[in-house]
């Protein structure tokens, strides 16, 4: 593959870092943006129009909690008018029936409601707040609306044994899709990794469950399962390849090739206030840095899988190998794979009393 540049297909709009939840695996950076730094309504309008012109098909509204933006209904309407498919990823907390109806009327296509567990106790522990009952209310309101509904369950050691209960919530609702996504270890999740990583026995059990349920529910509910890549043989094709499909815009307008890219030292990011989305996509140094194959070293450079997984995740390489250009250490062919194996050995060797005791979590704060 040459370094030819394809269109971005999805725009991940991190509208705000403000959030009523304090999830211990939040993918936001450790340094959160405050409200004062957030892009204006008009600036987002421009971003949506530029995105559609650049070939983007889908806009994912996320955060933080995107509903914390008082202009959220206008933003949905503007993105839809620009021609984008609008997806809202939300905790459902700042939602009432009137707001929901307004969002759907403004053109919302798809709502992804995040859950922190199947049981109130687990969910509230993970989110650091009382949140579960409100989510079930939102799920009930959604029956009145013609909008696609996905339930997003983030999976880890303390809730991976509740998959059947989670699926039961989805089956008794109007959802047509459920995502069981194991925690990926960046940001707050990296800080809490020791208490989140499931055991191999838990993972094997979950894989058998998913396979069985995917067959049973085919045509009725799509079940997606994201495994923790520390247990994988090959790395995930992170973001579909650096600068190939996705663009993340932070609350303050920085354009990133990946949510976590700010952990990589030496990368500087362009801001949508200063340059158009297309210019940033095609020319900014950050998007060029790991695009294509020129940056790759062995074993990636000559690997048969390099067009499938693009060398894995650059941020994970930085976090585990202290080198963003290294082969993703979760790859079984990576020189640093033993480091990942040692982390897994630790999680699998600890006695259950220690593994399953309630840990001292590092909770994500809510920025002002």
């Amino acid at each position: 593959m040459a370094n030819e540049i394809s269109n971005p297909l999805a725009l991940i709009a991190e509208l705000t870092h403000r959030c009523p939840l304090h999830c211990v695996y939040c993918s936001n950076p450790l340094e959160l943006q405050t409200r004062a730094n957030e892009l204006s309504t008009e600036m987002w309008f421009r971003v949506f129009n530029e995105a559609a012109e650049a070939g983007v098909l889908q806009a994912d509204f996320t955060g933080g909690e995107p509903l914390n933006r008082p202009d959220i209904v206008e933003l949905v309407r503007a993105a839809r008018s620009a021609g984008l498919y609008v997806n809202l990823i939300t905790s459902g907390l700042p939602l009432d029936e009137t707001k929901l109806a307004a969002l759907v009327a403004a053109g919302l296509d798809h709502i992804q409601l995040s859950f922190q567990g199947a049981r109130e106790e687990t969910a509230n522990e993970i989110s650091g707040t009382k949140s579960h009952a409100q989510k079930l209310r939102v799920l009930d309101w959604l029956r009145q609306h013609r909008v696609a509904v996905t339930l997003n369950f983030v999976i880890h050691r303390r809730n991976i044994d509740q998959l059947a209960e989670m699926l039961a919530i989805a089956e008794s609702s109007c959802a047509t899709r459920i995502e069981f996504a194991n925690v990926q270890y960046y940001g707050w999740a990296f800080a809490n990794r020791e208490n989140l990583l499931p055991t191999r026995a838990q993972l094997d059990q979950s894989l058998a469950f998913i396979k069985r349920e995917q067959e049973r529910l085919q045509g009725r509910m799509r079940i997606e399962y994201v495994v923790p890549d520390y247990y994988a043989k090959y790395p995930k094709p992170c973001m579909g390849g650096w600068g190939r499909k996705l663009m993340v815009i932070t609350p303050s307008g920085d354009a990133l090739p990946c949510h976590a890219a700010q952990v990589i030292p030496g990368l500087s990011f362009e801001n949508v206030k200063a340059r158009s989305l297309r210019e940033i996509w095609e020319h900014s140094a950050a998007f060029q840095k790991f695009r294509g194959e020129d940056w790759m070293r062995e074993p990636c450079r000559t690997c048969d899988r390099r067009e499938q997984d693009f060398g894995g995740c650059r941020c994970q390489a930085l976090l585990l190998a202290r080198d963003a250009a290294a082969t993703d250490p979760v790859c079984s062919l990576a020189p640093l794979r033993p480091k990942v194996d040692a982390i897994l050995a630790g999680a699998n060797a600890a006695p259950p009393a220690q593994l399953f005791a309630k840990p001292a979590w590092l909770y994500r704060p809510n920025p002002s």
Partner: protein
Amino acid sequence: MPLELNSRPRLAPGCRLGEDNRQRVLLMPERALRLNGPSLEIVERCDGKHTVQQIILELQKIYSKAQPQKVEEDILGYLALLEKDRALDFEL
């Protein structure tokens, strides 16, 4: 109800036609399918009014040079694919 000749497929909530560089696409949660001639003809008829049988008959007319049996198989195959993607509801 499942995919049957007398059922009426309709795009599921959150699945709709869109455009990408003047090419029609089927937009759905977390994915998009590019539509060419026949696939667009099929998706446009997934409106909750046409039965599967009617879609087959109409496309057999449009693609009258193709073997009718082959057209039917292709349509049933494509609808099964959309069903698996959870892009269709079937009504009576």
